[in-house]
């Protein structure tokens, strides 16, 4: 995704341009808000203050961001290997199963700091396992990973409904969910960190897995740009022929990459199940896997970009909820639309205003590439 046409100062490329795109996205959203007869200014105000204005709002924003960081990284890792993993949703779902099993087994006998790492490991393992078959088929049979991962999303849904309704549900309870986890499986919230800053997270479910997400981001960066295996991943992604020439084993690399990708998705369950819901119930991924695609692409598949994009989506989720909460005739569909417009302008149309900026900022007389 190299930007077309002339060079720009980094702060313009990575600061001003995205900012302009966001502004435009919100302007267009504002028109829609007007259309349904609400005040755009009021709306943006609710949205921003709702997401960032209070400790609690910020807490929720970062909580959602945590989930999106995981799914975003998952998509990005596969992308670097030239694989389009649409299976995040299913990998999160099944990852949740792993997390829940550990939690149910240990929450009464172990403290959280024992349970959590094991749950994380299980979530990673289950998520990875769910990516294994598509990965293997791609590597050895060349079956298109886009189809197989789509199919595995549906299969995951069926599997989980079956388990939650027929196996893991508490007798007599109406809702298809496991019993509530007890303290031994609940992650500490981060209120204590923010209170010194005078921020009260209130009941926001922001929890330690936020740090796991950031750590994963860093590890992914190391993996992709600083390890030999990452080099091999990127080579296959950029030029499979050259990869074969370089003696990089396609099948092996593809499989391992997808395992990592699926595992990262699976980790998201930790944030949601042990960080907030305290149980495993149907439908808990609620689309985070798909949001991950947008997050990864808008973050240009780079961890830093992904964290930023994830926070942006966290703001849209939390701010959107606040907005819908306070302005009665703004429904959740409105929020979905705004998300769509942001993806459109900040993502697909990211270069629309670039030529204009180039005309403004283009450094004159940049060094001409000299031929041999």
């Amino acid at each position, binding site marked *: 995704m190299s930007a077309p046409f002339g060079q720009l100062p980094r702060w313009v490329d990575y600061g001003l341009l995205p900012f302009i795109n966001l502004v435009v996205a919100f302007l267009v959203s504002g028109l829609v808000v007007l259309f349904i007869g609400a005040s755009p200014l009021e709306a943006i105000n609710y949205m921003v203050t709702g997401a960032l204005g209070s400790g609690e709002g910020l807490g929720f924003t970062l909580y959602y961001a945590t989930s999106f960081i995981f799914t975003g990284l998952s998509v990005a890792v596969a992308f670097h290997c030239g694989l389009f993993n649409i299976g995040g949703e299913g990998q999160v779902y099944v990852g949740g199963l792993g997390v829940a099993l550990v939690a149910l087994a240990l929450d009464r006998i172990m403290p959280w700091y024992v349970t959590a790492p094991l749950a994380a490991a299980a979530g990673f393992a289950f998520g990875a396992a769910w990516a294994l078959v598509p990965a293997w088929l791609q590597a050895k049979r060349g079956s298109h990973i886009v*189809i197989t991962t789509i199919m595995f999303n549906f299969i995951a849904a069926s599997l989980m409904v079956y388990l939650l309704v027929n196996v893991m549900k508490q007798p007599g309870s109406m809702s298809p969910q496991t019993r509530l986890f007890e303290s031994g499986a609940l992650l500490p919230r981060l209120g204590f960190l923010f209170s010194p800053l005078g921020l009260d997270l209130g009941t926001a479910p922001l929890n330690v897995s936020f740090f796991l997400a950031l750590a994963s981001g860093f590890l992914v960066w190391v993996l992709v740009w600083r390890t030999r295996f990452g080099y091999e991943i990127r080579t296959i992604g950029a030029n499979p022929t050259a990869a074969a020439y370089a003696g990089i084993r396609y099948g092996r690399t593809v499989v391992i990459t997808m395992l990592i990708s699926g595992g990262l998705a699976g980790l998201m369950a930790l944030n949601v199940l042990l960080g907030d819901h305290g149980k495993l119930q149907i439908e808990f991924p609620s689309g985070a896997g798909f949001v991950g695609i947008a997050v990864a692409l808008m973050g240009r598949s780079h961890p830093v970009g992904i964290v930023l994009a994830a926070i942006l989506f966290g703001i849209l989720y939390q701010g959107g909820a606040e907005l819908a909460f306070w302005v009665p005739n703004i429904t959740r*569909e409105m929020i979905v639309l705004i998300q769509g417009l942001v993806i459109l302008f900040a993502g697909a149309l990211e270069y629309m205003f670039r030529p204009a900026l180039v005309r403004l900022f283009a450094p004159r007389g940049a060094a001409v590439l000299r031929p041999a």
Partner: protein
Amino acid sequence: MDLFDTLLIPVLASTLRLSVPLIFTALAGLYAERSGVFDIGLEGKMLFGAFAAATAAAYTGSAWAGLGAAILTSVLISLLHGFASITQRGNQIISGVAINFIASGLTVLLGNAWFGQGGRTPQLPNTARFTEITLPFVDQIRPIPVIGPIYASVISGHNLLVYLALLAVPFTWWVLFRTRFGLRLRAVGENPGAVDTAGVSVAWLRYRALICGGILGGFAGTYLSIAQSAAFIREMSAGKGYIALAALVFAKWKPVNVLGACLLFGLLDAVSIQMQGKRLPVIGEVPVQFIQALPYVLTVILLAGFIGKAIPPKAGGVPYVKER
């Protein structure tokens, strides 16, 4: 013979009905991707089409007006996708994702603003729908064993769009392989440079391909909301766009294979519907969720077992940039 009537015939008929939206949508994707533009916004196109069809039909009371509106809307969405991914050289996948978000939000929003039923459109009378039509000579042919019932109950008795879907396949084949437009379309998906140096505009060609896709997307949506159902319901595309995408890859981007793939998906679905709640020999009662997962499992198995590598159009997904 009894099984033939009570099981096979219904399953085949149901197969046909279930494949129609997939056929339209997969063909829509075929035009786009053969021209080198990925399109995972199919889901959104279908949804917008369905909404437009139901809305127009509700206001005008005419199914044809509905179809027209659906096509118009879906084409507009395609143009948006084109503007983002052709003119602005944006990432085609992001653009598609964005369109899907916008579709699921905007349809409900507008529907609610216009009809105040949470995005649902008013219940349509049959006069405002595409209803089932009976082919000629049904009664004469029905008595004939085997072909009779098949003609009467599988081939006949569907709404117009079903037959249009079946016609769309050979038509698409003809366009692709027998017309100038088709030749250029296939070329631009493989090597835009060749098209450009032949003095044909790459951008305009791709736009036209997307427009074709838009038209078909409109048909798909119309089928959902005013042929199969009598109203638009939020999210009613229910993931069919993604299945169609899978069918397209499955079919290796070839029109006739698309028909095959979609019918296959339809069949698997129809079978799973029939099998629900039935006791199977040996296994006995199978949990419904397993039956519901069956089509997807089988797809994966077939894919791995029989369909080799699917090689997408070479220039697919990359915006055409002459000057780096």
